[in-house]
C-alpha cells in the first residue's frame, strides 16, 4: 500500500491506495471528485486531464504514488466563489459541448494552453494543442471558438490589471 499526500484544489489530502492505483482512480474514488473522467483508458482521449504542479497531464497514465507530494487542480477547483472560470463561461456561451463527457478535460487543457501561450492563440494553434483531447460530439468547432474567446477575455483582463 502507498500512502499518498497531495494538495488538491487547495486542500491537503491523504489516502492509502495500492501502488498500482492510477491517479485518476485516486481522485475519483478516494477523493470523490468525479468531474475528472475516464474516457478511453488508453491515454488518447484526454477526458482525464488535470493539472499537476501547474501543468496539464493525463491522470489515467500516472500512478497516484507518482503524484505523491504534488499540487493538483481538477475541474472542481477552477470556479472560484461560485463564479465560473472564464474558460468554463466561454464553453457555456459558445456552446462548446454537447454530451459533456470530454468537457472537463477540454476545459483543463484550455486553461493550460492559454497560460502557456499567454493568451496569444490563433485557431491553428488551438487545434494543434487539442491533439490530446478527443470529442465525439461537437466536431471541435465550438470548442475552438470557446477557447479563443476565453483567451481573448483573459488576456484582456490581464492587460486591464496591468
Amino acid at each position, binding site marked *: 500500500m*502507498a500512502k499518498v499526500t497531495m494538495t488538491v484544489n487547495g486542500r491537503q489530502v491523504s489516502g492509502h491506495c*495500492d*501502488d*498500482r492505483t*492510477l491517479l485518476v482512480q485516486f481522485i475519483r474514488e478516494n477523493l470523490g471528485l468525479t468531474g475528472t473522467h475516464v474516457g478511453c*483508458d*488508453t*491515454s488518447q482521449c*484526454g477526458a482525464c*486531464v488535470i493539472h*499537476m504542479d501547474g*501543468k*496539464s*497531464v*493525463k491522470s489515467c*497514465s*500516472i*500512478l497516484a*504514488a*507518482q503524484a*505523491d507530494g504534488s499540487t493538483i487542480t481538477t475541474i472542481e477547483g477552477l470556479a472560484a466563489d461560485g463564479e465560473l472560470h472564464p474558460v468554463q463561461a466561454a464553453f457555456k456561451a459558445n456552446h462548446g459541448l454537447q454530451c459533456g463527457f470530454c468537457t472537463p478535460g477540454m476545459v483543463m*487543457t484550455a486553461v*493550460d*494552453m492559454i497560460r*502557456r501561450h499567454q493568451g496569444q492563440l490563433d485557431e491553428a494553434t488551438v487545434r494543434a*494543442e487539442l*491533439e*490530446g*483531447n478527443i470529442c465525439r460530439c461537437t466536431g471541435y468547432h465550438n470548442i475552438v471558438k470557446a477557447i479563443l474567446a476565453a483567451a481573448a477575455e483573459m488576456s484582456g483582463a490581464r492587460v486591464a490589471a496591468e
Partner: protein
Amino acid sequence: MYETQYHRASSVQDAVKQMEAAGEGKYVAGGMTLIPTMKQRLAAPSDLIDLRHIGEMQGITVSGRSVRIGAATTHHDVASSAALKAVCPALCSLAGHIGDPHVRHMGTIGGSIANNDPAADYPAAMLALGATIVTNRREIAADDFFTGLFETALEGSEIVTAITFDAPAQAAYQKFANPASRYAMAGVFVARRDDGDVRVAVTGAGANGVFRHGDMEAALVANWSPDALSNVSIDASELLSDIHADAAYRANLVKVMAKRAVAAA
C-alpha cells in the same frame, strides 16, 4: 494492471541500489509508455523505481555549441528551451511534436531513448546529431546505443543520466505521422556539420528500428540540396510493413521526408 511496488529514488545512486534489490524492476521517468503498457498487462514489473525527482538528471546546459540535456528533462522543457533553440532549433521542434501537450509535460528524453520504440522521434535525432548517451557507468556513442526494436546497449541496472552533443551547422526533422496514433510512419533527421559531414537518420520505418542511411548521407555530402536525394534508392526490404503502410510506401515516405528535412534545415 498487475501489482507492483513503487519506489521514489532520491539520486542516481539510490535508484541503482533500489533496482539491484528489486526482483523484476523497471525504471520509470514520465511513464508515458510504461504505465499504459502496464495497464494493458504487456509489462508487469515487480518494482517501479521513479527517476522523475532526481535533480542531477534535470535540465539543459548549453555552452557555446555544446549541449547537455539531463535524461529526466521533459519533452515540453526541451521544446521550450530558449538556449537550445538558439543552437539547435531542430531538436526543439522535434520535441514539440511528440505525442500531445499532456504527454510532453511528463515524457522525458531519457525515457524515450532508453525505450527505443521503433517509431519514437528522439532516437533519430541522437543518431543524426552524433550524440553521446551518458549513463551512470559510461558514455555510449548513439551509433552503438540503439541495437534493435526496443533494444539498447543498456545493461541491467544502468541508467541514462544525460545526452550530450555538439550542435550542427544545420539540421531539421520531418515526420509523416500516422493519422490516428501520431507516431512516425517515417521520420528523418538530417544534420550537417561545418566541415561538410552529413548524417541522416530514419525512424518509424526500419524493421530493426532507427538507422542511418549511408547513401543519402553521401549524396548530401556531395550536394546539400533536396534534389541530391532524387536518385538515391531506399531499400524497401529492410523496412517495416504493417496495416498502416507497406514497405514500398514507407520507402517512398523516407525519401520525401528526407527531402523535406533538407529543405527545412
